[in-house]
């Protein structure tokens, strides 16, 4: 059975990113930077109706405009669009300006549907206008029962009820969705901004009816995905079709406006939770009624996965008596897609808010209540560690007892995520040249997590070289196949694979060179013995080097101005386990990133729909608010080092409990809870009873 070396030089240490220099100098070419020879600009025309039948699309005027080289309609008319922003048509032209003019000259005949629904509570009503013809917007909820929850509640010493809600959250990676596609006689090449080159290739081949061997996808650099960038996308297929007609490469990137409408989001949740415990805090009964929307993808698996709006419940804790009912409500809005730990941030938020409310009712310390009930020995350890590092005992006060206008408060929350595991199908290769240079090639993506660096670190460790000596190439379907970058499984997929490649490389080099140990100093002499031809070594994922499941707990401290409602997160302590740490530097950055994204979810982010027009009201960064540098707290990271578990993953667990911890801290500060995310000044002031009733 393979195993990681006990003493390591690079594994577990901080190693700077191998692609940092190209990124800080602007040399790195992202999918939106590709300038293929003769390339054209592509743009999509989207529905301005939340629900309509598209009868005809005429490009007569558009074709006549200078610079327009190709046009395409999404599908044959007539067809139905079901949300504001759904794709209708696309054009390719020599400039962005020509595309803009062309889009505005496309003539559409449409029959808008008079009635549509954009609010979850409206969509639940039996008479709400159907998003999908003949299908109820809100099917009967699925129910799951254990034990006898009604009897159990009757016997509880303390019972709380709450209604905890979370909004639709948009991924908004800094680089929008899109690709540069070239479709020639030889086939299709797509430089895609994607988390899954194979999923793009698969999607293009299928939609364009091409042999998969004729489709190549390349992603050298991409600007973030967070779960939204799997599959070819409507935009990818359109770009390919335009390229074919224009006989030129087409770069079609979405605008920020488009990103807010049509390429995925995290479903909302409206969780009515009832939680009961015995006098000593042991949880006895849990009841949840949850609904949320995945847009038009409610109930149906959307492209890229993540359809539906269900969340794991009861989250983290084993409650002997429970009743859980959930339903996904369809509305005329863009479909949900997997978004960094799908289902978990809202689940953590609801459950952990209820836990804190229960702790208050019981007069118990919230950490004590968790230690009493959390079945995970790892999280038990993490709560103990984190509480100590955070100074929980010193900082925790009875809710609302902080003096002064600016009230401080603390909160905590836990996470669980089936991270890691690793895709058993991951393969990789290394080309070892006679001059000692070595290049690793894996068909995996680096979405900003540091994948390329992980490869270099593992290879350097096992070959006795320095990471700078390893050339890493990823993101090409011509390379051995790798996993999609999702589920926090990438590190656990590629690390064992690189391990295997190195093991085989060493074996083969030893045989070829006659040297017993070709690592380190012996590397160059051994390579020289290769003669003229390089050695290409293939390897694949091996068991025994990775495992799965990661936990995590986070503590947050906030200061809330009770006159302006402004919430300032002053400190977060994040305690996480992730098995064997490969690169400490990139790992810390991942945790920082998860915390900051969780903070955005807690305080600033929500997709706002307008009832009357059905549009998304905040399709921009001005009113869809992301945390900025002035909002970010001190973040302390505590890593529970468990090298014996092998490589796991961290990307998603890091963002799961943050919003819950912050919400609990705010409730602790104020003595009253804002039970709806995002926690805006308006909601804080309302919770404090300061907002006058409105005369209708």
């Amino acid at each position: 059975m393979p195993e990681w070396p006990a003493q390591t030089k690079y594994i577990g240490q901080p190693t700077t990113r191998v692609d940092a220099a190209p990124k800080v100098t602007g040399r790195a070419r992202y999918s939106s930077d590709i300038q293929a020879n003769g390339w054209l600009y592509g743009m999509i025309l989207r529905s301005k109706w939340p629900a309509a039948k598209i009868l005809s699309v005429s490009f007569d005027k558009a074709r006549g405009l200078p610079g327009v080289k190709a046009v395409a309609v999404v599908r044959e008319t007539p067809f139905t669009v079901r949300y504001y922003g759904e794709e209708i048509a696309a054009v390719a032209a020599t400039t962005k300006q020509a595309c803009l003019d062309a889009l505005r000259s496309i003539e559409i005949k449409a029959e808008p549907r008079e009635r549509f629904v954009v609010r979850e509570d409206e969509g639940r009503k039996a008479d709400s206008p159907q998003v999908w013809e003949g299908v109820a917007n809100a099917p009967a909820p699925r129910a799951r029962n254990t034990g006898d929850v009604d009897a159990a509640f009757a016997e509880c010493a303390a019972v709380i009820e709450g209604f905890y809600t979370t909004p639709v959250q948009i991924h908004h990676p800094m680089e929008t969705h899109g690709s540069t596609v070239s479709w020639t006689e030889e086939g299709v090449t797509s430089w895609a901004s994607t988390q899954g080159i194979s999923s793009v290739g698969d999607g293009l081949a299928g939609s364009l009816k091409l042999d998969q061997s004729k489709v190549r996808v390349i992603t050298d650099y991409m600007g973030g995905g967070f779960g939204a960038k799997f599959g070819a996308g409507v935009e990818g297929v359109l770009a390919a079709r335009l390229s074919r007609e224009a006989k030129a490469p087409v770069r079609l990137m979405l605008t920020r406006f488009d990103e807010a409408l049509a390429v995925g989001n995290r479903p909302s949740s409206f969780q009515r939770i009832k939680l009961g415990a015995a006098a000593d805090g042991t949880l006895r009964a849990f009841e949840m009624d949850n609904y949320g929307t995945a847009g038009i993808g409610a109930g149906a698996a959307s492209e890229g996965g993540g359809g539906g709006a269900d969340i794991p419940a009861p989250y983290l804790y084993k409650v002997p008596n429970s009743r859980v009912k959930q339903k996904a409500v369809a509305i005329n809005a863009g479909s949900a897609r997997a978004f960094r730990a799908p289902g978990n941030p809202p689940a953590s938020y609801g459950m952990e808010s209820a836990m804190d409310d229960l702790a208050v009712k019981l007069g118990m310390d919230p950490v004590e209540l968790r230690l009493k009930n959390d079945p995970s020995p790892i999280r038990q350890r993490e709560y103990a560690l984190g509480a100590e590092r955070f100074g929980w005992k010193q900082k925790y006060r009875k809710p609302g007892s902080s003096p002064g206008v600016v009230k401080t408060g603390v909160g905590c929350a836990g996470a669980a995520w089936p991270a890691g595991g690793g895709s058993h199908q991951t393969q990789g290769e290394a080309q070892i040249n006679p001059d000692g240079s070595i290049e690793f090639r894996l068909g995996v993506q680096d979405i900003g997590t540091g994948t390329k660096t992980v490869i270099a670190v593992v290879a350097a460790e096992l070959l006795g070289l320095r990471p700078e000596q390893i050339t890493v190439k990823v993101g090409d379907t011509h390379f051995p196949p790798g996993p999609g970058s999702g589920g926090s499984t990438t590190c656990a997929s590629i690390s064992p694979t690189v391990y295997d490649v190195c093991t085989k490389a060493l074996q083969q080099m030893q045989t070829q060179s006659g040297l017993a140990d070709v690592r380190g100093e012996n590397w160059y002499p051994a390579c020289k013995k290769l003669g003229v031809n390089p050695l290409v070594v293939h390897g694949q994922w091996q068991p025994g080097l990775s495992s799965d499941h990661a936990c995590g707990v986070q503590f947050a401290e906030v200061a809330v101005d009770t006159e302006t409602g402004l919430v300032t997160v002053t400190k977060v302590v994040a305690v996480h386990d992730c098995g064997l740490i490969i690169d400490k530097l990139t790992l810390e950055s991942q945790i920082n990133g998860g915390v900051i994204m969780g903070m955005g979810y807690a305080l600033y982010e929500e997709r706002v729909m307008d009832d009357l027009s059905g549009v998304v009201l905040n399709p921009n960064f001005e009113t869809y608010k992301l945390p900025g540098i002035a909002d970010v707290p001190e973040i302390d990271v505590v890593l529970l080092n468990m090298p014996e578990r092998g490589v796991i993953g961290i990307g998603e667990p890091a963002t799961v409990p943050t919003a819950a911890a912050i919400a609990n801290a705010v409730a602790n500060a104020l003595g009253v809870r804002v039970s709806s995310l995002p926690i805006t000044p308006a909601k804080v002031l309302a919770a404090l009873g300061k907002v006058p009733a409105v005369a209708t």
Partner: protein
Amino acid sequence: MNAFQYATASSSESAHELVASNGAYLAGGNDLLSLLKDYLVSASILVNIKSLPGLNKIMHGEKAWTIGALVTVAEIERDADVGRAFPGLHEAAAEIGSQQIRNVATVGGNLAQHSRCWYFRHRDTVCLKKHGDLCYARHGENRYHSLFTGNDCISPVVSSLATVFAALDATAIVLRDAKETRLTMSELYQKAWEDPTAHNSLYPGDLILRVEIPAGRRRSAYLQASDKHAFDWALVSCAAAADVVDGKLKWPRVALGSISPKPHEVAAANEFLEGKTLDEATAAAAADLILKEAKPLEYNAYKVPLAHALIRRTLLKVKGDA
């Protein structure tokens, strides 16, 4: 953006001529380019006015300071003399947008900027301001909207400079039909109060030349409240200015932004404050007067306590240690 011609004007006369009936003045360009990109306005020509002589200076005489309309917000932020004379102006400037925006945004542009209401700014909702039939916000998503309205449009003025200039009794000098016209801040936005299609009282072709601030009030302060800590529009902003003589307020003026189509002031509150010793109680009483006639909508009632807090804090900040 639609296609347009471009010219650089070297005098206000030629600028006016070039802009004609369907052109736009291009100063910082921050608001104009956004409007053009979303097809909210159209212009057949953009006339770069940044070379117009004499409009980019900050000058002060005994009686008044003059800030040219082409002075950038960053220049105001950096000017130590301005900071000493009008701390409130400094404070407001520092919070406008981001550094990148402040470096190009001009005083004139900040005053003339169009509504930020998300229905106005949305390309596919044709609201009253866009000569449509209804105000979507009134019974829709109105969390960012006005507490005081003079017409059916409830979009508030968001220029933080206007808020401060109002408290400082400043006057905008506008070139209109080749003549200089003087407009107080109230007058500058009066049309927005009366007419739902208006953002301010400027006519097409009007060119803001400068803002004159009477010297005299030695103290001023500005505060704003937002969802985020930086680079975020104000939910409510407040500016106050006064002299403080023997601990008593002289010539006090308080103005609020983002709660009305014009900088919101209540004469009775200024009168009440005149001659008072400022403390929490008087500040609260003034705030009550300023907000007395507020008509909150379904989602913006939080602005009332928020404004109340800002008024108290801004007044106390003006008072300082006096």
